[in-house]
């Protein structure tokens, strides 16, 4: 079942088209990723879905509510973890959650139990009465996730949930996200510009560039659409290898002293190729394999590498802010 539906959703800022007529459907219970470089329009798209920005044209429904006509219905159905911190640093974790509970109409008698429940999910029970200012970046993120879950949303929006986090904490946040989907059945919509994040977390990924969806599928299907994995064999006799692997490789390409083969499931095929080479006594100097990543997919569709994008001013600011906050801890 589709829980979110966008049709022709567009947002313009003056002459700039940030989101350009995007239509897509998100299924209930999946982790859906919006992947793209900084400035691609991911955050603007999310902002419209969470009713923070009004679309210039087009429409969208979230949990059956129209984002323009029924914003309160949308707001009650969703939890949001913003890209930038959005906690009150001078309040304790508990007070932040309590304020949120009040704003989302959670009954007084349920508030305490709910708060304890969500802090347990993100393992912050022992810091619940500490002022947020004393929290590390990772703990703040976890608290924000907890806050996003407090009113039992059907859908959780995560805008760059792991930006500015160290690799270990990032892994932690990934685990929470997976748990939410598996144990709580929450639909998760996330944006990211980390390829490996989209790859390992998302059920389906939409690649967005310049405000347009340029590809949408499961990460595996997107990678497969490039023609499979690549095995590179270094050998003085590439022609013999080419002859030998007929029926295994989909495509072959001979370079000077080596041959590259496009195959499905390179990790299994590589052994087979080794066996064949040994059988036929073809000399192999080296063999390597390369699995296409979502980076390659992005490169394929846009002609650019996602990592070449310059760091935007806002990112630079965020990095500085985090460094500064880190210095105070």
């Amino acid at each position, binding site marked *: 079942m589709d829980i979110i539906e966008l049709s022709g959703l567009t947002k313009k800022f003056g002459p700039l088209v940030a989101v350009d007529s995007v239509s897509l459907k998100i299924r209930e219970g999946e982790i859906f990723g919006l992947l793209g470089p900084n400035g691609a329009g991911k955050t603007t798209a999310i902002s419209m879905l969470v009713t*923070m920005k009004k679309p210039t044209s087009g429409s969208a429904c979230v949990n059956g509510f129209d984002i323009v006509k029924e914003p*309160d219905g949308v707001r009650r159905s969703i939890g949001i973890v*913003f890209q930038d911190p959005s906690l*009150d640093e001078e*309040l304790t974790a508990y*007070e932040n959650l309590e304020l949120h509970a009040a704003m989302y109409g959670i009954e007084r008698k349920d508030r305490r139990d709910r708060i304890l429940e969500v802090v347990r999910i993100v393992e912050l029970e022992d810091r619940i009465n500490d002022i947020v200012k004393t929290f590390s970046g990772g703990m703040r993120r976890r608290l924000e996730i907890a806050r996003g879950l407090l009113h039992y949303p059907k859908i959780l929006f995560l805008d760059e949930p792991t930006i500015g986090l160290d690799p270990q904490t990032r892994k932690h946040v990934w685990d929470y996200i997976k748990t939410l989907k598996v144990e709580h059945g929450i639909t998760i919509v996330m944006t990211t510009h980390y390829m490996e994040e989209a790859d390992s977390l998302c059920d389906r990924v939409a690649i967005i560039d310049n405000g347009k969806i340029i590809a949408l599928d499961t990460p595996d299907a997107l990678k497969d659409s490039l023609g499979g994995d690549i095995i590179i064999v270094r050998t003085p006799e590439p022609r013999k290898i080419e002859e030998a692997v007929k029926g295994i490789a989909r495509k072959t390409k001979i370079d000077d002293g080596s041959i590259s083969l496009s195959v499905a499931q390179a990790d299994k095929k590589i052994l087979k190729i080794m066996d064949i080479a040994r059988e036929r006594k073809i000399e192999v100097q080296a063999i390597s394999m390369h699995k296409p990543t979502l980076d390659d997919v992005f490169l394929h569709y846009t002609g650019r590498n996602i990592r070449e994008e310059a760091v935007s001013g806002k990112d630079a600011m965020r990095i500085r802010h985090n460094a500064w906050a880190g210095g105070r801890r």
Partner: protein
Amino acid sequence: MNHELTALYFMWKRELIRFTRSKSRVVGSLAMPFFFMAILGTSMNGIGSLPAGDGNYLEFIMPGILAMVLLFGSVFTGVIVIMDRQFGFLKETLVAPVSRTCIVLGKSLGGATTAVLQGLMMMGLAVALGASVDLAGLPVVIALMALISMAFVALGVAIGSVLEDMHGFQLIMNFLVMPMFFLSGALFPLSSAPEIVRMVSYIDPLTYAVEAMRFFLVGHSTMPIEISLGVLVLFFAATTTISTYLFNRIES
């Protein structure tokens, strides 16, 4: 509706919690008015004839200094909207399923409460310096302080809703708040000011706040109290309407 009121209550409570946690900020905000009162109030005593406080300059400026504390305290908590925007908390409130009006009212009431608390602290300091305050009239004075504070918090929220970042804050302090204070007749009797200053002071809402404070604290004002109170109520209605309108328009 009940849920909206709960949200309003928690927004109010948030301002109070932040107030009790920011002791250094409170001390800092009371320092300047205290020095005005302690140094000017004691050393300018008897240098000229004053229309109020029986020639006691400390008692003359005390209501003015209290109005100053209310003005600074309220405008500051209103302008905090900018800080909320910068630190991201504003977004959390903007996407909540509560009306913006509730949020802005809760915030304004909270800000006004903290401003009145600062006013009362300042009053205590004034008494310690030798000013006398009539305890029986205190409830009326507190009500008046609440009205003044709510009006100026709303002014602060209105400004905070349109400013993009903290850079504009200094500008507001130097070109709006400080002139408002100096023109209000808090430190000198307007009757002795040149014509032009007096004219300008009549468009300064703080003038009416100082006049009303002086009326209820030392029993003297150059303006009829009905006019001061009338202007303050109108000013309160105007700033509250404008701040609610502007806050409702924020699209982050």
